[in-house]
């Protein structure tokens, strides 16, 4: 049983406290809103309250004249109003409620607010479309001119495997179902913030920002200012959570702060209020699913056909990537011979949808795993058995005909369902009568392609520098978002180089100091992105050993025999032949001869020698992604280097008189390949479960004709400590060595199957299916949305 605990490493694969934990506990860690600069101004945005409108006129004179106001800018006052990514820095064509029509810099909060209130805007209201149905109608209002039917064509993907018509002919039972998911807010506790400072001498613009991906943010600033990228520097501050949300939103406010800083020659700080954050930051894509699935009486699925449509909102830069992933996973973790799915996004005059932990998987799994339960019920086969028959195994072909190996999904399923007594409980709960509080148990499976796959280029770079005293600095373009990246990377560097964890400093992502390694997304950092950290560390180790030999730290004569040792006394050194680098190792900061370990020197002493001898003590390495080829029309091909697998089982108690769903216990099993840090891994899973609970039962941003009904935490509800379920975690490892030390993605897998398991549990408890997420009070009681 490949449970965590059987692998042997020095620095990784165990608990280590976070290296950035203490500063956060002391309250001294610097988040972007904590920063202050002399003569700093505060920046703010004026937003449209219409979902679709043209700005006929905008009068900023009164605002400009106000005491303490240093700049007021509209779309025509800036070099480039439209960003490189379809979003608008400032617009005169409003496409959603929240679109920015002017920006202001002023000395105090009060002056800023007053200035914003003095800007007079005349709007011509235009028609608008809010739902996918409205947007797809003939002659519907075009959200963007160059997308004539509002279909986001770049986000359309098809999967065509085998022949579904034949597959359905072979089926004994066919069912068709529709599912729908809701808008969800990231709700990181830290609202977006940034501080832009222009260097008075050469105009270099530095922005300190709560940026999930600093290089992505930099692109916006350089684009808005129309300057070369080298003249922009983004320094990531300690970031208060992101989950995919601090990408476009931070890019946009950083660009705006930079524009104001340039216009005023003063530092400008922008801190979003929570309400603004709700209005401007991207939401989880709502999805509509239409699935048809057929199976033989004996349980084998013969065909699956699906249409997956998501609401992209007014602007978009993610649906085209996200839908690619969705299409690859559109048939779930099952070996189905015939697959035909179509995935596409639609523009509407709503808040835009974007990256959010899972990147389509929580929505897809919500639909697919209920579909599987429904089909199993029709076939009268136990859902566990049904999944074991059909799930991916070693040698199976996925929906894109990729052969997968090192698959331990069936072991995970068996372990978890046994552990929780799933089958006997499910049957017992089906027979509850005369009960007001009904119990239910539900399961959901997940598989997830690690990293970007063929969606994007999954390459990364890392820099590792040894200092003269043996301490080490590492840096990567990938960023600490709270997930523990700094600690994991330090552990990986420690493992690769052979020095202690305490001797390593991870410098935060600063675009001047390291290279663009792509975005910190897709749960790619530890699994794939850290590969270059490992190789750089290992290369540095070899380099330092080479240095040690060349510097006669292990002195040899012409026959490469060790003559004497400088650092420590030893017995007899006669006759010890030093052949090459492979004779030496470094562990825990000690450089030693493998065969004769008493011949050693400290890494620190080695570094001193290297410094004074002018030896190279640093490595920059780059690991390029595996080339993945996929057919554009059928989606067939190898789409990901490897996959992680998971099984989640949720137990609920449903009050059938009020519709209240109490999530009582969740058991979450994940194949993480190799655990890098056990307490960080558990932390991701605990957090993922509670986030999944929110998605399944509580959270929804209701968008009504473009207006948000929820824009703060008084009515956008997340689980509190009292609401969380009892949580059990099983960490599995395997021999797949694709990722860094075999690590697989975990950040997103940790949450993606939870809501689906809850939905299946609710169905078990009540006998009614909630096919439209979330399972809130009214939906559970009435079986439909209240309004």
């Amino acid at each position, binding site marked *: 049983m490949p449970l965590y605990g059987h692998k042997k490493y020095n620095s990784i694969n165990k608990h280590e406290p976070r290296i950035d934990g203490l500063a956060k506990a002391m309250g001294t860690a610097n988040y972007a809103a904590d920063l202050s600069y002399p003569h700093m101004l505060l920046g703010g945005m004026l937003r449209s309250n219409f979902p679709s409108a043209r700005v006929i006129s905008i009068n900023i004179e009164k605002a400009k004249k106000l005491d303490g106001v240093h700049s007021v800018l509209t779309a025509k006052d800036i070099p480039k109003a439209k960003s490189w990514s379809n979003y608008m820095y400032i617009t005169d064509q409003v496409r959603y409620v929240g679109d920015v029509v002017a920006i202001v810099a002023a000395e105090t909060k009060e002056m800023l607010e007053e200035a914003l209130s003095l800007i007079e805007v005349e709007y011509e209201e235009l028609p608008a479309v809010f739902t996918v149905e409205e947007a797809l109608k003939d002659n519907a209002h075009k959200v963007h001119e160059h997308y004539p039917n509002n279909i986001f064509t770049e986000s359309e993907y098809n999967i065509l495997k085998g022949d579904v018509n034949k597959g359905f002919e072979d089926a004994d039972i066919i069912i068709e179902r529709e599912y729908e998911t809701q808008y969800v807010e990231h709700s990181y506790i830290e609202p977006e913030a940034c501080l832009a400072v222009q260097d008075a001498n050469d105009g270099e613009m530095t922005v300190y920002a709560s940026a999930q991906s600093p290089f992505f943010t930099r692109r916006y600033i350089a684009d808005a200012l129309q300057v070369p990228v080298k003249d922009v520097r983004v320094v990531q501050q300690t970031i*208060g959570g992101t989950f995919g949300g601090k990408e476009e939103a931070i890019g946009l406010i950083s660009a705006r702060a930079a524009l104001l800083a340039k216009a005023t020659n003063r530092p400008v700080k922008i801190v979003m209020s929570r309400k603004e954050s709700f209005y401007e930051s991207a939401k989880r894509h709502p999805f509509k699913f239409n699935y048809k699935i057929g199976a033989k009486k004996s349980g084998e699925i013969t065909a699956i056909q699906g249409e997956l449509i998501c609401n992209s909102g007014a602007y978009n830069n993610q649906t085209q990537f996200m839908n690619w992933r969705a299409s690859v996973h559109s048939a779930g973790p099952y070996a189905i011979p015939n697959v035909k799915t179509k995935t596409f996004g639609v523009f509407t005059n709503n808040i835009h949808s974007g990256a959010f932990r899972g990147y389509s998987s929580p929505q897809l799994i919500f639909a697919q795993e209920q579909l599987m339960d429904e089909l199993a019920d029709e076939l009268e086969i136990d859902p566990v058995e049904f999944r074991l028959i059909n799930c991916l195994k070693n040698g199976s072909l996925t929906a894109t005909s990729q052969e997968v190996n090192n698959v331990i999904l069936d072991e995970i399923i068996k372990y978890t369902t046994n552990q929780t007594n799933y089958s006997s409980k499910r049957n017992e709960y089906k027979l509850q009568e005369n009960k007001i509080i009904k119990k239910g148990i539900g399961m959901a499976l997940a598989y997830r392609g690690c990293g970007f796959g063929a969606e994007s280029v999954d390459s990364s770079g890392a820099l590792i520098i040894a200092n003269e005293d043996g301490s080490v600095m590492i840096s990567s373009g990938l960023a600490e978002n709270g997930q523990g990246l700094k600690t994991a990377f330090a552990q990986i560097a420690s493992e690769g180089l052979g020095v202690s964890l305490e001797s390593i400093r991870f410098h935060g992502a600063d675009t001047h100091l390291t290279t663009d390694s792509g975005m910190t997304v897709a749960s790619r950092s530890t699994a794939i992105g850290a590969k270059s950290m490992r190789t750089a560390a290992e290369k540095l180790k070899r380099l330092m050993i080479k240095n040690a030999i060349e510097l006669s730290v292990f002195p040899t004569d012409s026959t490469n025999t060790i003559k004497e040792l400088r650092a420590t006394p030893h017995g007899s050194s006669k006759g010890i032949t030093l052949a090459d680098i492979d004779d030496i190792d470094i562990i825990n900061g000690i450089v030693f001869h493998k065969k004769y370990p008493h011949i050693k020197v400290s890494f620190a002493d080695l570094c001193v020698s290297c410094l004074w001898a002018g030896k190279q003590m640093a490595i920059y390495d780059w690991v390029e992604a595996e080339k993945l080829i996929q057919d554009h029309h059928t989606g067939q091909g190898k789409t990901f280097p490897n996959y992680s697998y998971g099984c989640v089982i949720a137990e609920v108690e449903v009050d059938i008189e009020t519709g209240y769903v109490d999530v009582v216990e969740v058991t979450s099993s994940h194949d993480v390949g190799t655990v890098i840090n056990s307490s960080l891994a558990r932390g991701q899973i605990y*957090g993922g479960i509670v986030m999944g609970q929110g998605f399944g039962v509580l959270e929804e941003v209701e968008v009504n004709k473009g207006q948000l009904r929820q824009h703060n935490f008084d009515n956008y509800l997340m689980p509190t400590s009292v609401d969380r379920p009892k949580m059990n975690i099983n960490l599995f490892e395997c021999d797949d060595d694709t990722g860094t030390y075999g690590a697989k993605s975990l950040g997103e897998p940790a949450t993606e199957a939870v809501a689906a398991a809850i939905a299946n549990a609710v169905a078990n408890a009540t006998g009614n299916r909630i096919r439209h997420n979330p399972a809130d009070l009214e939906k559970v009681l009435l079986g439909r949305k209240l309004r």
Partner: protein
Amino acid sequence: MNKIQLKFTLNGKLTSLLVKPYARLIDVLRDDLGLTGTKEGCAIGECGACTVIVNNLTVNSCHTLAAQMEGKDVVTIEGIATAKGDPHIIQEAYVEKNGIQCGFCTPGFIMSTKALLDKNPTPTRKEIDIAISGNICRCTGYEQIVEAIELAAERLKK
């Protein structure tokens, strides 16, 4: 608009300053006094990131009027370290048990923890959950935070 002369005890020190009459306690702490450990997450008292302790009771500083603090005893995250500046046992426990991920909610949680353990040194798990029910964490799922609080309680007893 007349500023108010406010005299109160802050982190053990008698503090006197002029504050705007409508300033919230969090504004005075962060902007006037540079104590940025207390965080603003929502401004309406729902997330608890701004938790501080006033006269031994936790409050949300984002919906507490600064001027009302006259004569009161206010403690922030900056005020619980030891006299030498070493971390409080609670702070150490949070680090050790991985009760911290992005860290933004952490000062608020730690203040709720301090107020709890000062009043009730041997809380049950349920009492812990209730004590932190006004603090929202989006990253940790609360589990390792509760473990940290239990560890802190154990250590403080000694």
